[in-house]
């Protein structure tokens, strides 16, 4: 732990940071209530856990939000971090936090955890004694995660690929891998003291026509990078894609392959969970319709067999949802899960086989990269387009894969770019689509497909 300790000191040499007492933090984690660990809830729960979204600038606002959420019967509390903290700009976050505290207006779009510090935040977390999930979007989350775990937050979302490719144009991807390697090791180390810290990848990516093969490959790779470092509890995730059947197939394949690859690298002892995001694309402006969409997402999540669902609100299209809207979604979702019974057993062998072949082919291409470590193989694979995320703004992403929806709204690959989709699978995907259209028609279709839920 000496190299880690050295890096730690560099990270902590920062005027905005808590003075860390690591002995005390270890003692805290060792004796922390099992109820704070989502890994513990996953192990004992016989229902899907429900987690809303939410983060406010001030301690008081966040505390009130949690009070509200607990009354609304949430299973997992969210802590969404503000965008200044995501860019490691703690100075601006501090200023905006002070302005938010002094005025009625919110100057931050989330909770500036580093500025609040772990001593303060821990009071809130332990007060509610519910598992908290950290939602951020930070490429360099080292300081943030140290602060989170010291606060009693034992689920950390994100990863080097999923938190970078959808959000950033220029942040160096190689650095992101190294920063997240640190995060994984910190999580792994603390996991030895009590229940495991759960890591969760962010499957929705750009939430825009990403084919399931790309989503799954990235989920598996971030999982492997975490398990390599000793993480023992990991959640792969994806968001509603627009076709119920494709979601069910995606869920089946990701569960099987996560288990398969975890065992391949000798980490079969890790617990792997599945998280489903309610629709992450463009929402209808009509709030009644938004509720229909949300309810349908919950039904599909049940058919997918997710362990946790992350909810949206009826106010999604119109701005930042109120706590009331979030609480309503939670209550509605819990009710829906309660009354939804007699789920059918659904297996689409052909679609599962095609998707499995695609994922395995891409994974093989990544593993065959000549680099010495897994993260460098993955880095190279993104750089050379073996992994290509549709609609990523990042300069390293190839953007040469083209996807459209077929008649059943399944996302299909009609141009594979440099991604090694096997010929048989590629032919199958194209065979589902109307390929008679010219580019103008395809562009119009894509515009339509993006607005599919409106």
């Amino acid at each position, binding site marked *: 732990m000496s190299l880690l300790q050295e890096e730690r000191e560099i990270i902590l040499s920062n005027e905005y940071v808590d003075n860390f007492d690591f002995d005390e933090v270890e003692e805290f984690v060792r004796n922390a209530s099992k109820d704070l660990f989502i890994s513990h809830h996953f192990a004992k729960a016989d229902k899907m856990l429900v987690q809303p979204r939410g983060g406010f600038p001030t301690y008081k606002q966040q505390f009130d939000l949690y009070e509200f959420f607990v009354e609304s019967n949430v299973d997992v509390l969210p802590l969404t971090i503000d965008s200044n903290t995501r860019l490691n700009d703690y100075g601006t976050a501090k200023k905006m936090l002070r302005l938010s505290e002094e005025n009625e207006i919110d100057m931050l779009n989330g909770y500036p955890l580093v500025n609040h510090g772990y001593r303060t935040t821990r009071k809130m977390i332990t007060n509610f004694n519910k598992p908290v999930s950290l939602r951020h979007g930070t490429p360099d989350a080292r300081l943030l995660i140290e602060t989170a775990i010291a606060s009693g937050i034992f689920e950390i979302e994100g990863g080097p690929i999923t938190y970078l490719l959808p959000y950033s144009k220029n942040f160096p991807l190689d650095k992101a891998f190294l920063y997240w390697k640190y995060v994984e090791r910190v999580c792994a180390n603390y996991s030895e003291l009590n229940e495991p810290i759960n890591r969760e990848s962010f499957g929705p990516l750009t939430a825009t026509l990403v084919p399931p093969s790309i989503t799954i490959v990235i989920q598996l790779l971030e999982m492997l990078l975490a398990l390599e470092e000793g993480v023992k509890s990991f959640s792969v995730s994806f968001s509603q894609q627009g076709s119920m059947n494709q979601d069910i197939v995606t869920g089946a394949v990701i569960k099987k392959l996560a288990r398969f690859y975890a065992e391949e690298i000798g980490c079969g002892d890790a617990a792997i969970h599945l998280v489903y995001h309610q629709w992450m694309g463009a929402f209808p402006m009509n709030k009644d319709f938004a509720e229909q969409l949300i309810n349908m997402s919950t039904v599909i999540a049940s058919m997918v067999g997710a362990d946790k669902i992350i909810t949206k609100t009826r106010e999604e299209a119109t701005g930042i949802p109120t706590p009331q809207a979030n609480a309503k979604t939670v209550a509605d979702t819990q009710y829906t899960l309660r009354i939804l019974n007699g789920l059918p057993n659904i297996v689409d062998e052909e679609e599962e086989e095609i998707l499995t072949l695609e994922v395995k082919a891409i994974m093989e291409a990544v593993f065959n990269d000549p680099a010495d470590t897994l993260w460098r193989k993955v880095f190279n694979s993104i750089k050379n387009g073996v992994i290509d995320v549709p609609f990523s703004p990042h300069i390293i992403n190839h*953007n040469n894969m083209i996807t459209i929806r077929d008649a059943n709204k399944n996302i299909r690959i009609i141009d594979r770019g440099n991604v090694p989709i096997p010929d048989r699978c590629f032919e199958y995907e194209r065979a589902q689509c109307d390929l008679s259209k010219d580019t103008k028609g395809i562009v119009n279709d894509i515009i339509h497909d993006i607005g599919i839920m409106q």
Partner: protein
Amino acid sequence: MKVVTGVVGNDIHVVANRLMELSLNARGYEVFNLGVNTHLEEFFDAVVETGANILLISSLNGEAEGWSREVKALKSKYKNLDDLIMMIGGNLAVGRGDAEEIERKYKNYGFDLVCHQIDLNTGLDWLEEFIEKRKTQ
């Protein structure tokens, strides 16, 4: 013909940009896509580097007003850009606004073609008409 394109400012919405690239490619242009979050200087630098004939800037969140006034002054610092076709599209004002008024304003800022809340393919049709008209002049 060569086109430099991209989304100006802090906007990270990449969809329109990506569809623009697809559509331009399909119409036979050679496209240099600077992507989202591009600064004004980067656009002109890229035009010079690539020898592009057309600069097509997207702006999606109604913030174009802020930086458009600088376009003429900045362009004048570069040489040989007199024949460059300058086009802007997207959401050029907050809310609906008056389309004619908006077009007049952006033409004054130095754009030859102004597409405020115009369908992508319609905008590219206008570009083709403009190129044809200029050829015959």
